């Protein structure tokens, strides 16, 4: 059941992974349990630090929208994305056109 999967060049064993995970989790929890003894609940140490400003009640004001995620990646790859989104025109006949082109390409090359 929990056997090993051999890929021909390596193997995968789920039980070994689970044992490793359990050890790592135990180690992490032990480290976390060491803690600092000068921590006091209910004081300023508990407060969320937000650049020294008051934290707003509504989370919507401080959340990062998904469109801003990976901004640098998209900026660096801008020429690539320009071509790629240029392909996705969303026009129905273009979709048919790509399909017919691929079929025609394959037909030409296999007959040659």
């Amino acid at each position, binding site marked *: 059941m929990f056997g090993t999967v051999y890929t021909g060049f390596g193997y995968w064993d789920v039980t070994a992974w689970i044992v490793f995970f359990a050890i790592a989790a135990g180690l992490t929890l032990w480290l976390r349990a060491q803690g600092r003894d000068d921590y006091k609940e209910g004081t300023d140490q508990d407060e969320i630090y937000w650049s020294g400003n008051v934290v707003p009640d509504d989370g919507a004001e401080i959340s990062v929208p998904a469109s801003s995620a990976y901004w640098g990646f998209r900026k660096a*790859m801008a020429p690539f994305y320009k071509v790629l989104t240029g392909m996705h025109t969303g026009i*129905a006949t273009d979709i048919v056109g790509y399909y017919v082109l691929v*079929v025609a390409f*394959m037909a030409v090359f296999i007959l040659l």
Partner: protein
Amino acid sequence: MNWNDHLPALLLMIPLFGAFVAPLVCLLGKTTRNALLVGLSFVTLLVSLLLWRNVLIGGIAIYVMGGESFNLTLPSGMALPIRIVMEVDAFSAFMVVCGSVASFAGALFSTNYMEKFTGLGRFVSLYFLLTLGMLGMMITGDFFNFFIFIEIASIASFGLVAFWRDRPEAIEASLKYTLVSQVGSMIFLIAAGALYGKYNALNMAAIGSLLQFGVMEKIALVFIIGTLAMKCGSFPMHMWLPDAYAEAPSGVSCLLVAVSQASLYGLMRVCFSLYGVNLGGSFIPWMIISMGLASMFFGVTMAVVQHEIKRLIGYHSVSQVGYMLLGLGVGLLVLDDARGMAEYGFTAMKGGIFHIFNYTMYKALLFLAAGAIYYATGKRDLNEMGGLARRMPFTTAMFVIAAAAISGLPPFNGFVSKLLIYESVFAVHPALTVVALVTSVLTLASFVKVFQTAFLGPEKTVFTGVREVPSGMLFGMGVLTLAVLGATLFPSWTLSNLVEPAAKALVDQAGYIGAVMGGGL
């Protein structure tokens, strides 16, 4: 009469009965309708499991529709089979199990998800027709019949994609899908007609036993491969796929994933069992591999920048289909090379086939989780979400499992199938593995983004009224989570019982032909 012999017919009959009787039964009220939807889907799942067990024990199952006996393929001394023949080998049985699990989960999910809408009699009817088309594509042994089941599945899915008919985007997505799919089906029909004109037969095994690789066969082959690759959403022809998956109701998206796998099944069946070793050089395998690579890379790069949750998952479908095309394409490349097949080809095929199972389960689960978020919040744009983990703990947990599995994080099942593919395709060329690895990294990146923006972060005041979704939807997701966790914890059992027989059946062309034609090649 032994019911085990009739399982292939029962598998088609039960959804057919459901589709026919649904408009009447749905007049009786909500509970009866839900009972019909869930009950018949569950019976279909049971029948598919029995069929799979039978095929594993007794070899290829043959069923002749309307014949004097269920396995009389060549009546009264005919040279070619003329009746409609269902042929279920281990690969078909494997696909049938995947498809009916997705169908059952989608049905369970839809009972709660769709209850607000009108026209549910038609919805149930179309849902069963879609299941029927999918299962029919997987078990038919007849070429024209395959076309009919494609069309049944397509027409049902056009209707279901456009089910929210007052949403302009849904209508638009359905229109695009209809246009490209109609042109594709007509081209597929030309290929079927060409093969019929050449060999006077429509049965796949009969054509396979007679096939000589000439001009007409080449044209038929590219037409079939083009159409089926379009249907399963490989790269340059994938534009309809994110639209349709995103705009369909979530229970249907879950089933559409399995339907696209049925098209992939047809592609592999034609390449391996119909053409087999006389595929005419390495052009077609390399074409499939390069379509797979392009789908993987461009699909995932498009997914990274999306901000609509179901559309993002739809682009991941494109990239995941690439893995299967890659694995099975490498298997096809070394089909007539016994040494390469033993060294890495068979492992690549095992990886590809295992990935079909994993992909169907976790992608269906992701669509259902996205649907649950949509049901609870009414939002589909990631920019407007945040902090949902506190409100919807079960959905969050299941989403995390699915996202980890699709990103190939160990120990989940996605990692196992991807590992099988990585460690075998590099023997052909290392670049294939590099592209697959980069795709996996980008997949993880985009799901980190989804998880962070939708579930983590500070709680928004607009979501204070959000509740966990009803139990029917949770059970629907739970079925798929169980499947994912099962394949995670017992990878060697899954590989040796589900995947390896399927891969062996796929490379065994003589067995597939002999089961119908009686005797060897």
